[in-house]
Each structure stands twice: as C-alpha cells, then as structure tokens.
C-alpha cells in the first residue's frame, strides 16, 4: 500500500470529504483524485469513516440550555435590549418635533421678509390686518426707558412703546436687501437698545444689576 507523492493534494482530501473546500480548489483536488488511485482509495476511506462516525448520540439541547448560567447584563444594556423599538420611536418623535419647530420658525421669518418693496411698514401691517391674515411681529418686553426707537420711515422701523411691561414691536416691510445703509444702521441701533434693556421692568428706575451676583443665589 502506497501513499500519493503529491502531499498538497493528499492534505486536502479530508476537506474535500467534509465539503469545506471552495469550488475552485475542490475541482482541482477532484481532478487529481480522478487520475490517482492512492488518493481515490484514501478518499473512499475518509468517506467511510465520516459515515461510520457521523451518528452522534441524541442530546437534549433544551435541557442543556436550561442548565446554562444566565448572562450578566449591565442594567442599561438590558433595558436597551428589551425595548429597542420604543427607543427608536422616541428618537423619531424628537426628530419630528424639531423639524416642525424649526420649519415653523423659518416660515414665519420668510413671510415677514416677503412684503412688496414699495409698501411702507404701516401699509403692510394694515394690508395684512385688513386681509384678515396673521401678522408676524417681533415683540419684546422692555422697561420704561422713555425712548422710542424709530428707524425713520424707511422700509423698516422699530417702535418701542412707553410704560412698564409695554410691548416693543419691530415691524419689517419689504426685504432687508431694500434697506439703505442709514436705515440698516438705525435698525441695528434700535436692536442694540433692546439688547441692552434690563429684563425685569419696574415702576422706578432700578439701580440694582439685572444679572444676579454669583454666590447670592445661595442666600
């Protein structure tokens, strides 16, 4: 009894018998076996051994699974594993709310800037009111500063009304691109006034700083 001298082919016979070779290698080995009596005999033996030992005693896998230790899962991972769908829905709701909010704000601002360029702010406001449409305005609560900010009858104006908790309304007519340099300057000045205004109005001029001093909150 002889062994084949082609060691490479001979070493691949168990894999050929097991069917774990890729198609190309399998074809190559089979071609060799077809012309090699020693390898053909060895392959036959391998198939016999596999067939004789293929039978395994029946094992009750469910009983084995019952005996296994339970996985130690960190609480957070366990929650994630148990309710992955809910978590996904939460994210979708958050995304939808964000989209609606941002979209709504964008629409409001866009509408404000789409008034005809030849229409004054008052005209535009009246026109929108008379048409029963909704008017978008920027409203800020300002203290009694005694000042009125007016951009001077250009395409835009800002009015700051007197009185405690009075409303300051900024009305914009036409596009920002229609404003001349002076109007933009005046508008920016008015907005700066609003920014500088203290947030908590009072009947008397308030000398205390608007922002709390750090550390006072604990008293």
């Amino acid at each position: 009894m002889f062994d084949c001298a082609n060691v490479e082919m001979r070493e691949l016979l168990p894999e050929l018998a097991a069917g774990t070779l890729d198609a190309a290698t399998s074809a190559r080995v089979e071609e060799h076996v077809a012309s090699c009596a020693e390898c053909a005999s060895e392959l036959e033996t391998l198939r016999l051994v596999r067939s004789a030992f293929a039978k395994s005693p029946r094992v009750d896998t469910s009983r084995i699974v019952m005996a296994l230790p339970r996985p130690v899962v960190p609480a957070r991972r366990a929650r994630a594993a148990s309710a992955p769908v809910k978590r996904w829905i939460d994210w979708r709701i958050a995304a939808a709310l964000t989209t609606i909010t941002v979209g709504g704000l964008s629409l409001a601002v866009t509408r404000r800037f789409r008034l005809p360029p030849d229409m004054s702010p008052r005209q535009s406001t009246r026109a929108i009111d008379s048409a029963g449409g909704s008017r978008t305005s920027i409203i800020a609560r300002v203290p009694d500063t005694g000042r009125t900010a007016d951009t001077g009858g250009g395409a835009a104006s800002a009015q700051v009304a007197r009185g405690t908790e009075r409303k300051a309304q900024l009305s914009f007519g036409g596009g920002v691109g229609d404003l001349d340099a002076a109007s933009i300057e005046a508008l920016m000045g008015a907005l700066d006034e609003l920014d500088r205004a203290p947030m908590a109005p009072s009947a008397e001029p308030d000398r205390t700083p608007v922002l709390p001093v750090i550390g006072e909150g604990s008293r």
Partner: protein
Amino acid sequence: MGQDHERNEISTDLDLIARWKAGDERAASMLVERHAPALARFAMSLGQRSDVEEVVQDTFVRAFGSIDSFRADSSLRTWLFTIERRLILDRRRADRRRKDDLSIEERDAATEFDALDGLVAEEAEARVRKAVQRLSRLQREVFLLRVTEGLSYREIAEIVDSTEGAARVHYHNAMRAVKESLYV
C-alpha cells in the same frame, strides 16, 4: 479552501456570543444546537460510553461560565473541544482514583464502541469502527477531529495540547493503520 467556511463559522459564533452577553437567551440555544452534536461525537471518540449528554452539558456550562476568557484566537468549536477533552480527562482521573486496579485506556480500547455497534448497519462501517478502535487514544482523537470535524492541524494541536507537526504525524500514522486494517 476551507478558510472562508471557517471564518464564516467563527463570525456567526461571535455574533451569537455577543447577543447572549446582551441578554438574548435564544442565542445560547442556537450555540448549543450548533455545537452539541459535534461535542457528543467527540465525547464518543474519546471513549465516553455513557453520560455523553452530561459531559456535553458540563462542557457548555463551563464554557458559558467563562465565556469572557474566550479570545476568538481559534474557533468556538475548537475551544469547546478543548474544554470537553479536559473535562473527560479529569473525570477519568477521578475514576482511576476510585478504581485504580483497572487501566482506563485499555478498558476503553476494548469496549468503547460496543454500544455503537448496534447502530452501525453497514458492514464496511463496522469494519471502519473496529479499525479506528485499534488506534491509540491520541491517534484516534487526532484522526477523528481531522476526518469527522474537518479541523486543521493547528486547531487539533490546540485541542490535544500538542504541536501542529505532531498532529500531522499522528493523523498520517492513523490513516495508514486504518487502511491496512481495512484493505490488507
């Protein structure tokens, strides 16, 4: 070659292990179903006549209890075989201490496949069984791991705690002995 097949098997096992660690107990069932038959066959080839299911179960319990120590350097099946082999050898040592007047290996060589003989219908298969039965225990382990489980010499060496070269020699000696027993 068989390397792609081996890689796919390893990645499936790793995926199932990750799922089990995350709390998915169905993954444990799938792992047991994938490997229990091979472990039962290997237990038989190691001469385990009775309590095969118990041995397989103990193997899985031990493996799942120390799954974090599985480094995936080899396949899960190779690791399970290593655990099972150690478990069986430990049992034998314990048995030997109880019955130290009887050589376990000699007794196994004479009788270990008797229980299976009834299951073997084909005469050729019966002859193969007898031929394999005559091999030394190490030759038989190496030979059956290579032929029935399709493991590489590297994996076999890891399981039987030997070298790749030694595993190759054991396999070819076993093959020669089986062929002589069958055809001469």
